């Protein structure tokens, strides 16, 4: 199905805003969304499925007497359905309670041209092309060893676009693409089966590398076959992007959201300008990072995305704001309003959470570790205390490092601590940066983490 063009999307959004104002809204905003995804799936080691999902919708915020109402529908071609949705947003606002802190929708601001977030070739991909990508990934994994067994995965191509209009003059349209391939494998040797090892590659253009994904997943699983228990102790950890992504999403990223800071849910409250990490730690939230998986011209409210320094040389500099939390403090939004398509109202979220790389290569960083653990996959990070930053998670598999080399894997190791202490104990940041969801980071060496073996 052909995608909706700019004029059509913007037209829908603007019409909805003017209708809402006619019906009595003091302010109104419309968010029009389209997503088209084609996927090929691997299940139980074989390509056995292909799917195509087309999702369109409109979400409308109507403000009446400082109370916000929201309604959405996925029937956007039908004039009456959209009219009814606008009316429901108004009704919801009228049923709600005024919010004295509501200071209006965002005003229009110029957008920066974003780089490398759209590749026309992705829109032209068919399931046949994706079957080839998936097949190449499967063959690469199996080529590593007969002991490697692919389980599930797939390849996908996505086109996304959105348009936002509001009664304060915002009028916007942006489109982007994404392609990804992923594979989960285990290795088997006799009765030994490894835990699942997973790799993927996601890009905004169509240059994904299925062979690397297959081989790397296979290599990890194979190296997890030799496994030994480890003792309980305080040790050094090399955290890969997999581990960082899990840990930070549920702890550090929460602590820098203005919403949580304002609501006494962040230990960083009142600490702007203070040292919270060693000098080698610099973290930006960069909504404009070229090729970033969360790079867009504007956020979920039509505010330009930007680069915001969160931690610079160890010093806490800024929090992440959407329009509401910014206006509450008399500040400017940092362009961090996020939406789950047309189904939700905006909320504060990081864009590309970028831990700036150091100059040490991953190999050099490993060489610095006389005794420690290499951590990939974590279980249970979502059960961290999102307010205090305390975590108690399981790493499985993880790899024991001795004299700079991984010597065997280990299973079910528990790591316990507090993310803010971990941050203070970062000793080396490597240079091997990669993108993973909202995280852009290299490997990191941290000291003094409590590890509970068996």
């Amino acid at each position, binding site marked *: 199905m052909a995608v909706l063009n700019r004029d059509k999307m913007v037209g829908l959004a603007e019409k909805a805003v003017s209708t809402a104002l006619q019906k009595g809204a003091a302010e109104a905003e419309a968010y029009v969304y389209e997503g088209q995804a084609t996927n*090929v799936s691997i*299940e*139980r080691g*074989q*390509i*056995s*499925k*292909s*799917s*195509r*999902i*087309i*999702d369109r919708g409109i979400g409308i*915020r109507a403000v009446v007497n400082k109370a*916000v*109402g*929201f*309604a*959405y*529908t*996925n*029937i956007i*071609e039908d004039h009456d*359905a959209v009219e*009814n949705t606008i009316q429901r947003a108004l009704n*919801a606002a009228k*049923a*709600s*309670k005024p919010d004295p*802190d509501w200071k209006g929708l965002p005003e229009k601001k110029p957008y920066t041209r974003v780089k490398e977030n759209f590749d026309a070739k992705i829109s032209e991909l068919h*399931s046949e092309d994706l*079957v080839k990508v998936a097949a190449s990934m499967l063959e690469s994994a199996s080529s590593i060893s007969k002991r490697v067994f692919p*389980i599930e995965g797939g390849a996908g191509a996505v086109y996304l676009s959105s348009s936002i209009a509001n009664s304060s003059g915002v009028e916007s349209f942006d489109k982007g693409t994404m392609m990804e391939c992923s594979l989960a494998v*285990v290795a088997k040797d006799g009765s030994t*089966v*490894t*835990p*699942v090892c997973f790799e993927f590659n996601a890009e905004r253009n169509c240059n994904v590398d299925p062979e690397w994904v297959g081989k790397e997943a296979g290599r990890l699983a194979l190296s997890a076959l030799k496994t030994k228990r480890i003792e309980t102790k305080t040790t050094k950890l090399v955290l890969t992007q997999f581990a960082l992504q899990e840990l930070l999403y549920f702890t550090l990223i929460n602590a820098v959201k203005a919403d949580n800071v304002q*609501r*006494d849910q962040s230990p960083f409250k009142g600490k702007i300008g203070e040292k919270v990490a060693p000098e080698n730690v610099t973290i930006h939230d960069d909504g404009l990072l070229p090729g970033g998986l969360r790079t867009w011209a504007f956020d979920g409210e039509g505010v330009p995305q930007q680069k915001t320094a969160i931690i610079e040389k160890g010093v806490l500099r800024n929090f992440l704001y959407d329009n509401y939390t910014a206006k509450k403090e008399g500040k400017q939004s940092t362009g961090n309003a996020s939406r789950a398509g047309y*189904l*939700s*109202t905006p909320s504060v979220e990081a864009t590309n959470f970028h831990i700036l790389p150091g100059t040490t290569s991953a190999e050099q960083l490993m060489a610095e570790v006389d005794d420690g653990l290499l951590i990939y*996959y974590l*279980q*249970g990070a*979502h*059960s961290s*205390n999102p307010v*205090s930053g305390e975590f*108690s*998670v*399981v790493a*499985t598999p993880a790899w024991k490092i001795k004299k700079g080399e991984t010597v065997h894997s280990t299973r*079910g190791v*528990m*790591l316990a601590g*507090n993310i803010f202490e971990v941050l203070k104990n970062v000793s080396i940041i490597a240079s091997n940066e990669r993108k993973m969801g909202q995280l852009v980071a290299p490997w990191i060496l941290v000291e003094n983490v409590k590890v*509970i073996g*068996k």
Partner: protein
Amino acid sequence: MKDVLTKVADVAVQRFGAEYVEARAQSLYKTMLTLKEGRVEAAKQGIENGVALRVLVNGAWGFASVGSLNIESLTEAVSDACRMAKTASSKLTAPIKLAEAKTVKDRVSVKPEKNPSEILMEEKIKTASAINKTALGYDKRVKSCTVDYLDLTGTSSFVNSEGTVIEQDKLYVWSRITASAVSNGVFTFSREEIGSTAGYELFDKETPEKIGITVAKRAAEQLEAKPPKGGTFPVVLGPEVVGVFVHEAFGHLAEADLALSGGVLAGNIGKKVASEVVTFYDDGTISGAFGSFKYDDEGVPAQKTLLIKDGVVVGLMHSRETARKFNVAPTGNARAENFRVEPIIRMRNTFMEPKDHSFEELIEGVKAGYYFKSFRGGQANLDGTFQVGVQEAYEIINGELGEPVRNASMSGNTLETLFKVDAVGKDFKLSSGRCGKGQTAFIGDGGPHIRVKEVVVGGSA
């Protein structure tokens, strides 16, 4: 709607030679609220109409989803699905086949005492505000309270090429309440979740006052709690923690798709994997429970499925595809979150059967260990490694409850741990929750109090 779906299914069979076709249409209406410290962030309403089309051609699946009920769009989508299935079948070594399912013609209606779609938004805001007011009023150290509310009503229609035609009313009421407390640089966090498929009368049992106090009390008490010692300890688990353990640590392994994907249970059917006091069910037929429904999203009736009986694995949870692989009957566990996604194997209400111990008898046997009363989250790996994060815990010293402990978690290998369950309580509680497996499913889980001889406890002290 049924006639349109039947026509579309016919196109796939007649024009593309599909072996099997199903069309699932939904028209759903949602109300959502988020209140933060009593402020209504936004009162939200939504309509979602769409159709999911799934076909089996040459032994491979094709799937298309469209947000339209229009026959031309659906015909285009089903044709697309058939062509994609053909493409996907090009590398197939083991063609997919389905277990037989009885043809069903049925109309399922819900009869709530209080239908959420007939309750005014004002009333729902009042209920959420009352929860918030109770929580923040409980203790001045409780600084924040978020109340999320959702109700969903509507109809789902299912038609397949075998002649099954089902129309099913849907009804869910759900709320999650979180609170945090701060004192002297200590931050605590507490959450509670409630849900029902019966109706808005959920709040007559789980009154705003009751739930507000539960959440706030826990956040406040945790301020005085200490971190646990890491290491191997005996534990007594409360019904909520047993529920999440049964669901996460065992339940996912008993989902036949995961068992077939290298999970540890595939080779253990008929074998003893737990001590004799362990019996687990997954039951979709409990009236009003959050994980209950009459037919799953393949048109198979939900049932009460026995998973472990007296320590022996007797069954898994199946879709029609996996049931055929195991040569058993489908169990009615194929669920799809909405029309955008295809049905996959999901749990319903998963629980452990109670036995004969009192709570006192359970803790009496513990010299130095922990009582894990309430959980924050859990996760499992196919190799059987599980983790459960605990939000409310106490020490047990010489058979008596001691001081509160915060941010504990437990881990182990499921099959090893199940053998270490040495006593099972006589109480029982089923809780409501949501499970993520790419899609979100509404589920129930629970059980009695139990004692486990040893698990690894994660703690920083």
